[in-house]
């Protein structure tokens, strides 16, 4: 049974990027149909670590990140819930003098861009964050960063988009998109045929297929985060923690559960699904016990993993299509999409409605993969 629809904008992919774009477009008064292959926010948006941070991002992401940063404290006004956002600050640890030097260098580079980081030496770190294991040289602290609940935020954006009048279809995998006259025709496996003036490709780890349909294949890979969650524990971790060089990140929610990520999970036979590896989780558990002695008596009650789309240079693809007017891309956030997604939605809405955005996004243009497109197989 076919249902025919017409809208100003078709959005492929109902993760945070797609739903925040839908919401922002509705604010601009455009009609929106969002097509999600499964459930909105069930993929990367719902299974990421939950860090809401500017610190540590590639410098070119900072303007976009700062734009999003202003939105997080206002989430309740925007989507009806604060998504359990806590502005605890983000503390990035250094395990060696070299690592500390990297943190100092980064702090210098971002200071003119409006990100004021506080560098802490070993003693100050012990004084302010005594619950962190002593084998750390120093740290860089970013006030205003924090963390939130990815499952709630993703679902809340979808619900808000619906309330704002976006038509959101779940279990509607897109099977084809083509240019049709001066618009686009999109079809789903669930029997929808949609005509739109513009298309936004925010299909996350699956976005490569749609880019390829318009002759701009990209080297999009899948990465699978591995996260462990403890039982509720007495409050100790007062900041969102990361580490220079990666390997572990940790936060504690208000209910007391500690969420610790690190290591990569393993894809299953169907690469859309993954499971943490037991070696990986045991390693993270041991690392967490070393770094956070107060967690040592706790129990892990849950592991999770999921599918995130990643680009080789760890920057997303955001912006207009190289080949097709009216097509816009926003995907490949490489495991760091959570904090910036609300900002990306606004940027996409500006692009679609006016052709330009006030936030610098040139570094994320799909053009940088043009060579790869000519030799790609998908």
């Amino acid at each position, binding site marked *: 049974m076919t249902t025919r629809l017409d809208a100003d904008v078709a959005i492929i992919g109902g993760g945070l990027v797609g739903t925040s774009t839908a919401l922002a477009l509705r604010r601009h008064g455009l009609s929106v149909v969002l097509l999600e292959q499964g459930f909105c926010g*069930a993929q990367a948006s719902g299974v990421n670590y939950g860090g809401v941070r500017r610190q540590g991002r590639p410098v070119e992401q900072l303007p976009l990140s700062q734009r999003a940063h202003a939105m997080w404290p206002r989430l309740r006004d925007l989507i009806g819930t604060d998504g359990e956002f806590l502005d605890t600050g983000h503390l990035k640890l250094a395990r060696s003098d070299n690592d500390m030097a990297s943190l100092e260098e980064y702090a210098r580079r971002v200071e003119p861009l409006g990100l004021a980081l506080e560098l802490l030496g070993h003693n100050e770190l012990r004084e302010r964050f005594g619950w962190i294991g002593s084998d750390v040289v120093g740290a860089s602290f970013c006030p205003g960063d924090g963390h939130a609940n990815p499952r709630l935020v993703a679902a809340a954006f979808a619900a808000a988009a619906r309330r704002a009048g976006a038509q959101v279809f779940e279990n509607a995998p897109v099977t084809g998109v083509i240019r049709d006259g001066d618009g686009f025709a999109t079809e789903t496996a669930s029997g929808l045929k949609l005509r739109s003036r513009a298309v936004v490709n925010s299909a996350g780890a699956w976005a490569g297929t749609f880019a390829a349909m318009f002759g701009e294949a990209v080297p999009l890979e899948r990465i699978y985060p591995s996260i462990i969650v403890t039982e509720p524990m007495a409050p100790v971790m007062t900041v969102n923690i990361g580490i220079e060089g990666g390997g572990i990140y940790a936060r504690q929610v208000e209910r007391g559960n500690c969420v610790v990520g690190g290591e990569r999970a393993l894809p299953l036979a169907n690469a859309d699904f993954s499971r943490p590896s037991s070696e990986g989780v045991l390693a993270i*558990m*041991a690392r967490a016990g070393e770094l956070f002695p107060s967690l040592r008596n*706790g129990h892990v*009650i849950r*592991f999770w993993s999921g599918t995130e789309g990643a680009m080789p240079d760890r920057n997303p693809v955001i912006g207009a299509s190289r080949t097709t007017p009216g097509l816009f891309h926003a995907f490949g956030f490489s495991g760091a999409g959570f904090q910036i997604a609300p900002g990306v939605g606004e940027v996409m809405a500006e692009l679609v409605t006016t052709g330009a955005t006030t936030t610098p996004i040139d570094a994320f243009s799909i053009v940088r993969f043009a060579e790869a497109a000519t030799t790609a197989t998908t």
Partner: protein
Amino acid sequence: MSARGQPLIVGAGPAGVRAAETLAKAGLKPRVVDEAPACGGQIYRQRLVEDGRSATSLYGSEAAKATRLHRDFAALASKLDYWPNALVWNLSDGVADVAVNRENRRLAYDGLILATGAMDRVLPLPGWTLPGVFTLGGAQIALKAQACAIGEKVVFAGSGPLLYLVAWQYLRAGVDVRAVLDAAPSAARINLLRAALQAPDIVARGLRFAAELRLRGTTLRSAVSDIRIEGDTRVAGVSWEERGRRCQLSCDAVGYGLGLRPETQLADLAGCEMRFDARDRAFLPIRLWGGRSSVSGVYLAGDGAGIVGADAAELSGERAALALIEDRGLVCDHVRAAAIDRRLSKISRLRDALEAAFPFPTAWAREIGDQTLICRCEEIDAGTMRRAIRDFDLSELNRVKAITRIGMGRCQGRVCAAAAAELLALEAGRGVDSVGRLRAQAPVKPLPLMLRAAQGKSEAAE
């Protein structure tokens, strides 16, 4: 010495023990991993120490079966690798992760028999989290394995054969059993006739339990509804509705349950195809002939794959082992296998009758009040769940978990998933078979953060 690896049996209850015995007899030296310190599962759970009571006072009419099971397993000691106090928390690609002595061991297996058993099935009631409320199984374990009664003036409530059995066991132990509140509708009782035709002993025994209880002054009520447990910081009484009247009794403990629910998490993790079973009103791993699952090399036995009872557990454990033996290309006793299959069919028909006599209270989701907690661990009440379903237009159980936190606690949905599914089905206007099931995830039970990987690589056979 064959080139094949070592089979693994998870669980040393009746099913696991008989599976182990059968494999051992065939010359395969199985590894048996069980969480408890001794074999027997829950139904034939052993005391930690001798306490002067007879096997009959612990296991009633099944004492001989229990004793025989314990003895037979002990006699197998040299023919198997037995790991008590060990938790299988993950299965992946032919390797089991086992937490034992604060260490994690990775065991490669060649053939896997899942005999993971069951726990009580409950639907939340007002006051069900109060100190002094235990499951029927829990009340029985307190008596059997710890020589303790859950209270001095106990009310038993719920439905199913276990209700009368545990109440009677408490009576025999000298406890003041104040009431047995049976929630099964009167109309369902006619099915006891059906059950009586198939297994007259079992039904007669149940009726005798009820008669003795009544004789000794226990208040027996049937077709009760709207049970509420009262008390401030612990159980002080129970109230209920029967024939339009509200009744009340004071008591200091409640044993409550509505039959059993299978522990299917490992089957799910092993990749077994799951299907909704109307009788158990739960998703079960599909059981192919002889106890084979949908995954080659993975076999299912006992209550862990669908509630069948202790006798069927022993039989299905033996049967699953015979299937494993046959699939290995070894000599298999087909006559015995066929005989077991016939007996299991018979028992299954009995289970149909019993389930009909003690049906699942499908009206529960309609009647449960907003203030009653659905998820004990995370303390989420029915009202919160109902609101979230409406606000987020939810129709699938994992989504409900993601939004409401139901099932995110330490028990990982063991206690609350059945109730959550019922409530979701009603609110979303779907069948309880169409709202999904909680996705099984490792670890299947809480793991100590400081669990360290044991030295050495994956352990293969022998």
